[in-house]
């Protein structure tokens, strides 16, 4: 985790900050979801408590605090109580592996009569060389927490919801995993930071020994892998159990699915897990297909040079470059989160057999085709 005490402490604080960012994003997303749904469906959202209904978040939290802790008699208590805690872990672990911004370098300094540094702090929880494999592996552990909740509740509705959810998650994981084989082929790396770096600057690729450049388009993965983008994004919806794939929670048939017996903070933790998966999906789509934290067309060096004309000290330039890329990343994240919300309130729910058919018989063959065509094109043009 670091060479010395200072670096270890900073890295731990960074991990906690990312976790808190995730937890903090949930009430805001819930507010946005309810408010957005009200605008989309022409009805009233939360608009009474405080300005724009923003205080609704606090009121909800207070209500959660006052909820009685209750487990039905048929519940398997260890599983019932462990499931919400475990629901937080995969989402957070996976989210911490996504890079937010360029690394921030800190020069050597004196503190407590000792010299520290110089340091380079990565703007992500931890950098993994096998970033993609790690994220896919860890985030699919969510199926276990759902099964724990479903079985542990001792309710028929929970069990049905959990079974549906886990079958759905594993089915769409195939399409999800296969749709990014093309991306991996394109960049030749599992490392997410390397992927972002490969998408810098204007659209540029070499074909038949010539270098083709289009100055008005960014060098993003979506232009090389449009089908992969669509498949990955659709599978990500299913992975995070969102409409139109929220069969696990279909209110009309299963009431609330696997968390039917949960209330108060335990349910809130499932919500954090679900919204965490939305954050992961948005972050991954941005990283794979939209240049991650990169700014369209401009490379990091361009931004640094531009800021160098405005600020004197290299430290300020470094910090500002980091902040600009952070804002770029958060903008992309926000756009995808909004698409998640908009789709939820626009599309109707699938039937269960249609869902499985789409996953196995449509998305899997298309993803295979995408892989074959990508391999063929890469082989032929080089």
């Amino acid at each position, binding site marked *: *985790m670091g060479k010395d005490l200072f670096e270890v402490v900073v890295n*731990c604080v960074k*991990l*906690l900050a990312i*976790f808190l960012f995730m937890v903090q994003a949930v009430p805001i997303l819930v507010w946005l979801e309810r408010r957005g749904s009200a605008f989309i469906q022409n009805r009233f959202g939360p608009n009474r408590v405080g300005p724009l209904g923003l205080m609704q978040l606090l009121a909800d939290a207070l209500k*959660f*605090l*006052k*909820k*009685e*802790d*209750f487990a*039905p*008699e*048929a519940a398997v208590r260890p599983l019932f109580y462990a499931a*919400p*805690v475990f629901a*937080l*872990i995969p989402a*957070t*672990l996976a989210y*911490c*592996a996504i890079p937010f911004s360029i690394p921030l370098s800190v020069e050597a300094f004196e503190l407590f009569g000792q010299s520290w540094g110089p340091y380079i702090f990565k703007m992500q*929880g931890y*950098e*993994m060389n096998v970033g993609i494999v790690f994220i896919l592996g860890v985030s699919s552990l969510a199926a276990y927490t759902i099964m724990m909740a479903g079985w542990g*509740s*001792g*309710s*028929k509705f*929970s*069990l049905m919801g959990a*079974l549906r959810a*886990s*079958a759905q998650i*594993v089915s769409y994981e195939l399409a999800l995993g*296969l749709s990014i*084989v093309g991306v*991996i*082929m394109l960049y*030749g790396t*599992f490392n997410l930071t390397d992927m972002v770096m490969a998408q810098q600057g204007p659209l540029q690729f070499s074909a038949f020994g010539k270098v083709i450049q289009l100055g008005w388009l960014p060098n993003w993965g979506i232009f090389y892998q449009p089908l992969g983008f669509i498949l990955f994004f659709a599978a990500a919806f299913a992975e995070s159990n969102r409409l139109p794939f929220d069969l696990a929670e279909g209110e009309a048939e299963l009431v609330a699915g696997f968390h039917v*017996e949960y209330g108060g*903070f*335990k349910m809130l*933790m499932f919500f954090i897990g679900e919204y965490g998966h939305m954050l992961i999906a948005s972050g991954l789509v941005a990283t794979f297909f939209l240049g991650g934290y990169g700014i369209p067309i401009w490379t990091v060096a361009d931004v640094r040079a531009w800021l160098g004309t405005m600020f004197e000290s290299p430290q300020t330039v470094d910090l500002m470059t980091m902040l600009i890329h952070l804002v770029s990343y958060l903008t992309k994240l926000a756009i995808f989160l909004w698409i998640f919300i908009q789709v939820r309130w626009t599309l109707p729910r699938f039937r*269960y*057999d249609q869902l*499985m*058919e789409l996953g*196995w*018989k449509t998305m899997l*063959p298309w993803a*295979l085709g995408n*892989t074959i065509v990508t*391999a*063929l094109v*890469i*082989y032929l043009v*080089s």
Partner: protein
Amino acid sequence: MPIGGVIFLTIFIAVFGTALIYLARLTGGMRKNNSAVKKEVYECGIPGQEKKDTKISVKFYLTAILFILFDIEIIFMYPWAITFKEFISKGQGAFVFVSMMIFIAIFIFGLFWEIKSKALEWD
């Protein structure tokens, strides 16, 4: 070492989540003497049934088995995908490409057979 961060975060969330549930129990309270009806699991209007009575479709089991098979096959494509450009630059592109196409052909055959044998039909 990324593994240190992973372990730290896992332990922190486990402690944090447990503490959160415990604190919510303190503020919200937990009653000991619930009535028999309150202790039942959720059911809509009729007397509740235990999950032991629930029959589960065998299709879920089949889906899980097929998932494992196909997921392993997909994972085999990852190391190939990551080294594909490297092999091309070394002039071995044709060999790597054709061998993976054979693998994918077996994959497609498996998928086709699975669809033909109605393993994916839900009724």
